[in-house]
């Protein structure tokens, strides 16, 4: 396998920084987030999981999708093309979330132009996990700590430095000038968590749609947006034309899209005030059904990569893995005719 020493990796990154934007995990007031770096020394690679996922680089928290000038005539302008960027130090679970994003924003017409632009200009360099961390469950949802899905290059930490797998044309392009050492050892197997529940099939989820369980589960839900905002696969958003300037005879707007989520109480409220998901039970149930039933049914991939951030962040202690386990139990009970 191809091997790079830490020194060579740092040199490569420093070189990349000369010509392209690099975003990597950095510490921001005690939290780990993916930010643009100026120096290689800013990068934190000794981590389990970052606090926010790197989806912010392909699907920003707030993004103008159109600029509008309303004067004598109406003028429209598209936002500038995003600059090419290398996203460095991406965990395999976070990279897999791109499968969910691509299925919606690219594979299903109409294509989302902003997402498509970000996707095309982003190269992902992954860092595989030597083990599954405390709230992880990637293996229960089709992933693995060393999965290559969605990545252009995957690095695995080994004694000599990093084993490097160049996976795509994009990966080849940014590593073209690298000289690797060849080593004849195989990659270490990551340590897995045993005994995880198995995810029930979409029709098994559907059979439980009206179960009382969802009412009980949602009692403690606060209908905040924390779980969805730290989630690497959540992709719902709000759109609003925000006024940016007003002069006699001229109004300027930017059409903003900003993160939103089905867990928020007003998310599904429509003109006239009707809200099809007016109870916590309906909203929380939708969150789990979207991830494990509606989304895979409509688009293919699951809406969850097993990163476990929502488990750590939920102020009300709601645990998605526990939900999967309970659905497995309830499905078994149905099968036995109980």
């Amino acid at each position, binding site marked *: 396998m191809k091997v790079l020493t830490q020194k060579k990796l740092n040199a490569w990154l420093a070189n990349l920084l000369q010509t392209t934007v690099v975003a990597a995990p950095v510490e921001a007031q005690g939290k780990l987030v993916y930010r643009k770096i100026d120096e290689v020394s800013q990068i934190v690679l000794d981590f389990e999981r970052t606090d926010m996922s790197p989806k912010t680089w392909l699907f920003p928290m707030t993004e103008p999708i159109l600029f509008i000038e309303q004067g004598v005539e109406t003028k429209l302008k598209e936002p500038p093309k995003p600059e090419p960027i290398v996203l460095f130090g991406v965990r395999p679970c976070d990279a897999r979330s791109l499968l969910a994003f691509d299925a919606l924003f690219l594979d299903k017409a109409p294509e989302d132009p902003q997402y498509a632009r970000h996707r095309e200009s982003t190269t992902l360099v992954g860092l595989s996990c030597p083990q599954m961390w405390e709230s992880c469950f990637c293996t229960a949802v089709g992933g693995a700590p060393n999965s290559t899905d969605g990545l252009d290059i995957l690095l695995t930490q080994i004694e000599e430095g990093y084993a490097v797998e160049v996976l795509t044309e994009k990966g080849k392009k940014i590593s073209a000038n690298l000289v690797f050492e060849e080593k004849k050892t195989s990659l270490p197997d990551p340590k897995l968590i045993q005994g995880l529940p198995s995810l029930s099939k979409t029709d098994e989820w559907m059979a439980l749609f009206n179960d009382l369980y969802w009412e009980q589960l949602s009692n403690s839900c606060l209908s905040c947006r924390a779980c969805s905002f730290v989630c690497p696969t959540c992709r719902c958003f709000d759109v609003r034309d925000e006024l940016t300037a007003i002069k006699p005879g001229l109004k300027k707007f930017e059409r903003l899209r900003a993160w939103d989520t089905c867990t928020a109480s007003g998310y599904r409220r429509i003109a006239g005030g009707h809200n099809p998901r007016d109870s916590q039970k309906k909203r929380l149930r939708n969150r789990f059904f979207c991830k494990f039933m509606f989304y895979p049914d409509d688009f293919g991939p699951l809406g969850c990569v097993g990163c476990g951030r929502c488990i750590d*962040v939920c102020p009300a202690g709601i645990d998605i893995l526990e939900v999967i386990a309970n659905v497995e139990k309830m499905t078994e009970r149905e099968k036995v005719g109980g």
Partner: protein
Amino acid sequence: MTSMDVQIRKTAKKYLDEGKVSCVIGYERDSRGRVRPAFIEKPEDADHLIWSSECSLNLVTYLHQRKLSPGKDQPVPKTAVVVRPCDVRAVNLLFAEEQIKRENIKLIGLTCAGTEINGQQRINCKFCQERVPVIYDVLIESDQPIEIPTDKDIYADLEEMESWTAEERLAFWTKEFDRCIRCYACRQACPGCYCFECVAEQVDPHWTSIALDKPEKMFFHVMRAYHLAGRCVGCDACEAACPMDIPLSKLNRKIAKEILDMFDYRTGDTPEDAPLLTCFNPDERLRT
């Protein structure tokens, strides 16, 4: 299992058996051993209830889900809630603001030596001067002696912030709110925030942009702090809920301190206290 666990379970069972309430809100442990809210509706489930220093959530916010009649001609549900001294002031606030009726609530009060998050004692616990709730239906006392500190200023941690200039304070909060993700966990966890449609989310009038950028986040937090003036009880549920560990309570408790200094008023002393900033009291005087 401690003696407090036993007493909490006994009280919950009794209330449910006697039909005094249809739900007891307390704390339980999940399959990972972490503490989370429990909603006990059957007497036999009362054995899930626990109490420990990890019980840092304010359960009073859940009373908002149970304050209205569920349907035509149905009575408002009766609820029992496990409350710490800080939480119970929020209950008094909700009584005073006529959100909940005294006869629909049973308060299972606990004496409390302080709670922690991830092993660290919460900031308001460090300076708390009351270890016994100001109102309760049943008081469950710890079998360990609890000291009531008499010489600690409950707002002592704010002194440092008060010594800063306006520019320094702005710099501090700009830095802190940089990692805010406008998830509203602070607002949802707060027992005093119960507006059906928050100013931050109103479509018409559109007070603030939907953007999750610095100006909007600053606006949200400052606006929320002002809307809690005279209403914040200093329970720090906001800070406990924040996924980004932003020291939110500093902002809200600073305003609570101003109210105390100006009007000699601390929110939540009794259920009958008229809300300070919404009711005109001809006897009130600004302290000079």
